[in-house]
């Protein structure tokens, strides 16, 4: 690839979201006729980089050049026009339209001002064939297709736009092995045809098979570029690690093995194609982490416990006794005593326009009410306790909760559930987007609750947190528990390696390695 003039180049690209820097002076060079893999752990800046390239977000600073000319993209349409087409992780198909409609959506063929359905059909069939998916009927509605087929339509749609640079962001994550093989054939052919392909994937074996060039991102920067195959998996993982430890974690107590039945136990939980035979148990006082890449079934597992999923197979036991949890209302009932701190506090955790007071007492209203009326005095006492315990900083209890900072909002969500004194606490990435100080307080709180006898299941996309907070970590991959790390085994290396599902001795656990 050396010597070829770069087709596309990004230099010094930075992007901040509020106080969070997603990209910090990142560079990337893309060459025609090659497949370039982008690697990095959760939150390393890969998604933002692609969004900048595809015209979805504008960078704060930096330049992009295409064919040696500087370019800026005001919209995804502008990037498409320039020949940059992206297949996003979240699908960009319109569910109620037909496959053919979707494939030509950005530039439908026209005749007498109306869409030419015959030509549209032809283009769609060609594109589907080119993507190796001619089994998909162009008249089928997208919403009726299973996820893996939709992904193939997405690829066909991208090809119909005749791209020069094709970006695939986790494009294979929903595909079956047979589809992946087909897609690889297609991608290699496109490379022969002179396209530049950017390939973002967490699957190391795919990268090994496909990529010519690799770039590793960490903390919003590109930290290394190398020819594919010139580094071992182990070295790649080392490159992806390397954040400074900035969090302070409370010490983990040494817990004696108790003979008591686990507070929460799951046996062979399966759901749809997202959970695959998950078994786990948590004892009183234990903090168990869920690790793995984002979207490997962690969220579904928490929802399964909380009674949100229907058609769940397998069993859930509380205190050793089988229970059936049919709704969040049943899950929070005193007999089970479960609480879920949701991932998106703005939609699932809080009613933003309502007051801090109202939000705090929502989950405990039944306990605070006598004959259907809320006991204002009892409510006030409990709220005071919680505001004190969590040190919630608010100008008053009667201001909208939306006016608080992100960290304090999250404290309100947690306090709301603590008002019920839950015995089982499920946390879904609770520290996302909150400041370091609040994070530390939450770590302390979590340990305090565990010491008081709660069983805690904690999903985090931040590996440092899993290492610092958890007694055990279960790593999920494709909806199944792939590894269980206990105590000193919980290292960043082991977490990343098992999250990527790398087999072999290099990536295996090494007891006692510095955490």
């Amino acid at each position: 690839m050396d010597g070829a003039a770069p087709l596309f180049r990004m230099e010094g690209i930075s992007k901040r979201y509020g106080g969070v820097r997603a990209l910090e002076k990142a560079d990337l060079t893309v060459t025609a006729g090659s497949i370039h893999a982008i690697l990095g752990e959760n939150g390393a800046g890969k998604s933002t980089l692609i969004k900048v390239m595809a015209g979805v977000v504008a960078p704060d600073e930096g330049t992009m050049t295409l064919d040696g000319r500087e370019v800026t993209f005001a919209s995804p349409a502008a990037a498409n026009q320039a020949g940059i087409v992206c297949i996003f992780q979240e699908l960009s198909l319109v569910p109620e339209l037909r496959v053919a409609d979707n494939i030509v959506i950005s530039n439908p063929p026209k005749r007498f001002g109306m869409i030419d359905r015959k030509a549209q059909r032809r283009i769609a069939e060609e594109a589907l064939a080119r993507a190796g998916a001619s089994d998909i009927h162009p008249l089928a509605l997208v919403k009726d297709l299973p996820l893996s087929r939709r992904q193939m339509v997405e690829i066909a749609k991208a090809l119909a736009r005749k791209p020069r640079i094709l970006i695939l962001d986790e494009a294979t994550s929903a595909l079956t092995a047979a589809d992946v093989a087909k897609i690889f054939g297609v991608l290699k052919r496109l490379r022969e045809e002179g396209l530049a392909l950017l390939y973002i994937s967490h699957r190391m074996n795919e990268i090994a098979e496909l990529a010519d060039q690799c770039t590793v991102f960490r903390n919003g920067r590109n930290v290394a570029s190398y020819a594919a195959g010139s580094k071992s998996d182990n070295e790649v993982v080392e490159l992806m690690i390397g954040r400074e430890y900035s969090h302070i974690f409370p010490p983990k107590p040494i817990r004696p093995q108790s003979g008591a039945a686990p507070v929460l136990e799951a046996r062979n939980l399966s759901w749809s194609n997202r959970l695959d035979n998950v078994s786990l148990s948590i004892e009183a006082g234990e903090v168990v982490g869920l690790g793995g890449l984002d979207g490997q079934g962690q969220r579904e597992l928490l929802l399964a416990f909380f009674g949100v999923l229907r058609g769940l197979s397998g069993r859930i036991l509380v205190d050793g006794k089988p229970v059936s949890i049919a709704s969040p209302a049943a899950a929070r009932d005193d007999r089970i005593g479960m609480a879920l701190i949701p991932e998106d506090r703005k939609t699932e955790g809080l009613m933003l326009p309502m007051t801090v007071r109202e939000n705090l007492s929502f989950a405990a209203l039944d306990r605070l009410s006598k004959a259907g009326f809320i006991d204002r005095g009892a409510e006030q006492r409990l709220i005071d306790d919680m505001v004190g315990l969590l040190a919630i900083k608010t100008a008053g209890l009667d201001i909208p909760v939306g006016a608080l900072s992100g960290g304090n909002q999250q404290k309100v969500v947690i306090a709301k559930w603590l008002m019920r004194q839950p015995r089982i606490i499920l946390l879904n990435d609770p520290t996302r987007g909150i400041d370091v100080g609040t994070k530390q307080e939450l770590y302390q709180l979590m340990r305090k609750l565990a010491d008081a006898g709660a069983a805690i299941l904690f999903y985090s996309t931040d590996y440092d947190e899993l290492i610092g907070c958890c007694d055990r970590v279960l790593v999920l991959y494709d909806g199944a528990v792939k590894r269980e790390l206990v105590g000193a085994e919980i290292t960043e290396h082991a977490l990343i390696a098992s999250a990527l599902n790398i087999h072999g001795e290099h990536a295996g656990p090494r007891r006692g390695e510095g955490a």
Partner: protein
Amino acid sequence: MRDWRYWLAEQRGTLLAFGIFIVMFAIYSANHPAGFTANVVQTAANKGVLLAFIAMAQTLVVITAGIDLSVGMIFTLTNCMASWLVIGTGLETALGLVAVLGTGLFCGAVNGAIVIYGRLQPIVATIATGAVYFGLALLLRPVPGGSVNEGLADFLTGRFFGVVPASLVALLVVVLVVWVPFSRSELGRAAYAAGSSETAAYMSGVPIRRGKFLAYTLAGLLAAIGGLFLTFFTYTGEAAYASGNAYTLFSIAAVVLGGVSLFGGKGSAIGAIFGALAFRTIGDLLFVFDFDPLWQPLFQGVILLIAVSLGAFALFRVRNRLEWFL
């Protein structure tokens, strides 16, 4: 090739509405004292066509996942205008027609501009503009009155060849001239895409705003055509508040009966037309059975509830309960 199956699946809502209409109309005409005659059909058509136009208008907006609560008022406003303007010599009448239809377009465009560029919620924006349009109608016709070119009115509300109701033919022409090109145009598809998934549409570079704007504008035009026909039937203009509101609400019922999803992105104006005709027939059914007319709203409501419940069965298949709220 299994093309027809996909076609069938797509048209299910429309076909269901068609079926309901046929059954209702069969019951209606079988029990009508006069039986299935050209006269009965003509009267039924003239009543049904008004709601059909308003339902078409509503469909366009509902497809974009919006709602237009001003259609009934545009209908009323244009009725009042037509009772002043659509009269006199051929040229004067023609100019009057253009003015009335132009007003409808303009009202629709105002709705669209407020919703899309003003970023107001459609429900609030159109309640407000609807009140404005009704206010204008009141200014034009403080008391009912006026007249219309009777030759044109009789031509468009009579029968062709002694059997075919002219109003039905007019409806067909409007479908061919407005709906078919819209549904097959790039902007029409943009309207569907915006209603189904605005994010996906945006990410695909679809002209969402222009598509939605066109939908609102054409809705105004269709409501104005409805207003014209009301004038042709009644020969007068009347700023009737209750009637305008009833048409707005019935149009929503007709749209739902016709298989158009209130969540947007799905359905067709053809379905909505049959929904409107079926809804009207349900209302008239009681008369042929000699029930007290006081029962009509109750009966209509029950039938509507049953029909709409048919569409809610999909919720039983949802496996992640959070999807109920999406």
